[in-house]
């Protein structure tokens, strides 16, 4: 066993350490929670943190591993959130089990976001150059606009959907029958959701996201994606279908954002499209950049620190933003700094060699 661990590649060790770290964090937080040592505001942050970790890790797949800038990641989160809420609310009577409903909502959120990701990605990713940033930026705004005029209700006959583009339609235009549920009410968003998201579900989603992203990166597919990032012309010259692998990475990233959006949406009794705007996309991008491009555990740490920090700093209200800025710089240094990595290489032997393949 000891020998097995010794022979294991450093990258594999880093991956296992990432999984172990997440599991340990989950166990500790759960213990603290059951011991009643977490405040209400801390407990309230647990699910959103999990969602943002998945957002950051999945965005890292596009930005760090594929090397394409995406400025509309929150758009996929939005697609996932609203499709998740629709699934959950319309199945309320037929699927009373909350866990099953949650899983169905997450799967649906992932599938719909993947489809949207495919539609957005296919025209852009065929082009050479940084068009993805512009298109995803527009996509984020467009999806917000669409959901803001979306009316969705449910009755015995199934889903009723209308687009209130000219501003004349109301929920009445859906002509809902008896026992109906109003799910999405245009700009007001969705309200009256059952809050079925749990911290355990969040933890499982983080683990699944990590397994998908890390295993993908360490496979033939991930190598092809990183090859395209490092040198597109060389990747083509060894027979890699560039558009295909760009799409695989981008759609996977969108699907994971959709799943985390669904979890996020089902953590609140109401959600609105404005919560998933450009600022949210940038926020997640900040987590990814500060955590280190292509560095998965870095994304996790950066997300947790930068999400919790503004809350924790509330008591030092005057110095809050100053301290936030200092921490931003420290996180950036810690995850991207060569000296820090060199110091780490002395602690973990042979890290230098393994660092080659992009932890």
């Amino acid at each position, binding site marked *: 066993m000891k020998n097995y661990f010794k022979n294991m590649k450093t990258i594999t060790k880093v991956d296992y350490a990432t999984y172990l770290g997440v599991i340990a964090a989950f166990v500790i937080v759960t213990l603290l929670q059951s011991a009643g040592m977490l405040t209400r505001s801390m407990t309230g942050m647990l699910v959103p943190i999990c969602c943002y970790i998945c957002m950051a890790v999945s965005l890292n797949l596009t930005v760090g591993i594929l090397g394409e800038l995406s400025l509309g990641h929150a758009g996929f989160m939005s697609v996932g959130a609203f499709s998740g809420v629709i699934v959950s609310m319309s199945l309320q009577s037929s699927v009373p089990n909350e866990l099953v409903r949650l899983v169905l909502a997450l799967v649906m959120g992932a599938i719909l976001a993947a489809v949207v990701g495919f539609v957005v990605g296919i025209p852009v990713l065929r082009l050479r150059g940084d068009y993805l940033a512009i298109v995803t930026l527009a996509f984020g705004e467009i999806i917000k606009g669409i959901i803001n005029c979306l009316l969705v209700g449910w009755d015995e006959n199934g889903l009723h959907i209308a687009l209130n583009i000219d501003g004349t339609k109301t929920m009445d235009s859906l002509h809902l029958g008896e026992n109906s549920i109003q799910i999405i009410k245009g700009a007001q968003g969705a309200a009256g959701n059952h809050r079925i998201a749990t911290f355990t579900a969040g933890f499982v989603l983080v683990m699944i996201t990590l*397994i*998908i992203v890390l*295993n*993908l990166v*360490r*496979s*033939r*597919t*991930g*190598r*092809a994606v*990183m*090859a395209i*990032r*490092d*040198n597109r*012309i*060389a*990747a*083509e*010259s*060894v*027979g*890699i*279908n*560039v558009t295909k692998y760009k799409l*695989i990475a981008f759609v*996977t990233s969108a699907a994971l954002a959709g799943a985390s959006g669904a979890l996020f949406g089902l953590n609140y009794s109401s959600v609105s499209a404005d919560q998933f705007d450009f600022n949210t996309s940038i926020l997640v991008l900040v987590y990814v950049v500060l955590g280190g491009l*292509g560095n998965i555990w870095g994304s996790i740490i950066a997300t947790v620190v930068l999400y919790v920090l503004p809350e924790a700093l509330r008591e030092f209200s005057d110095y809050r933003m100053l301290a936030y800025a200092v921490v931003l710089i420290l996180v950036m240094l810690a995850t991207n700094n060569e000296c820090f990595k060199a110091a780490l290489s002395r602690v973990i032997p042979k890290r230098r*060699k*393994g*660092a*080659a*393949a*992009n932890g």
Partner: protein
Amino acid sequence: MAKKVFEKGKMVPVPSHSIIPERDLYKSPILECSHLGIDFGGLAAVKDFNITVGRTEIAGLIGPNGAGKTTVFNLLTKVYHPTRGTILVDGMDTAGKTPAQVNRMGIARTFQNIRLFNNLSVEDNVKIGLHNQTRYNALSGILRLPNYWKQEKMAHESAMELLSIFDMQDLAGHKAGSLPYGAQRRLEIVRALATNPSLLLLDEPAAGMNPSETVELMENIVKIRDTFHIAIMLIEHDMNLVMGICEGICVLNFGQIIAKGTAEEIQNNPVVIEAYLGKQKEG
């Protein structure tokens, strides 16, 4: 004209290895270009380029800087689409193909300005070359199905074997971008070989290498041809290398072929001498 180089094989003195030059005559050629040409902004960078390369031939493409040699490679690998002419690889037309498709048809190449996957390890660079030899899809990779482990093991073994051509197994874990210049050039050759080509294009493989490295490279190019039974076409300024191992040489100047023949013929060709001396006067 197109046939000439091909037939010249007969007259080439047998090189340091044991394969007889007539060997390729009875097989269809691996590459046939006819009337190949490309214009950049109305200016013809390559015109009326005709060449035939035999199955296991080592062919040389030489000429002064800016003659259009790299452009020919870019045309063959579809980085540029030819304005005129046809390219047949193993008898099949490459018109309308992408660079990736041409690679799958059997052409692999290296680049004059090295293009490695710098942030990845040496081993991963070779494994990326093995991309189309490794057969499992993204889902098997994510779920790590038995096929994943089997294929990854095979990829690892093949990568190590290919690296051993240049004695580079020990560098497997290093970042490609951190290698010295000569090793980077060798790694590019290994990566190209990993795609299992039938024609290997080397763009200035000895550039930046010292004389002893160059001699070693020469031996290795011949070794590669002899072990893999493939054709190799190379662009090189080192005349010892070109004259030493190329069976057929093609001289390009201002985008046009000015001479074809064996090393001896090229060395004594007044047109070639003038092209090179003329170049010296300018520079």
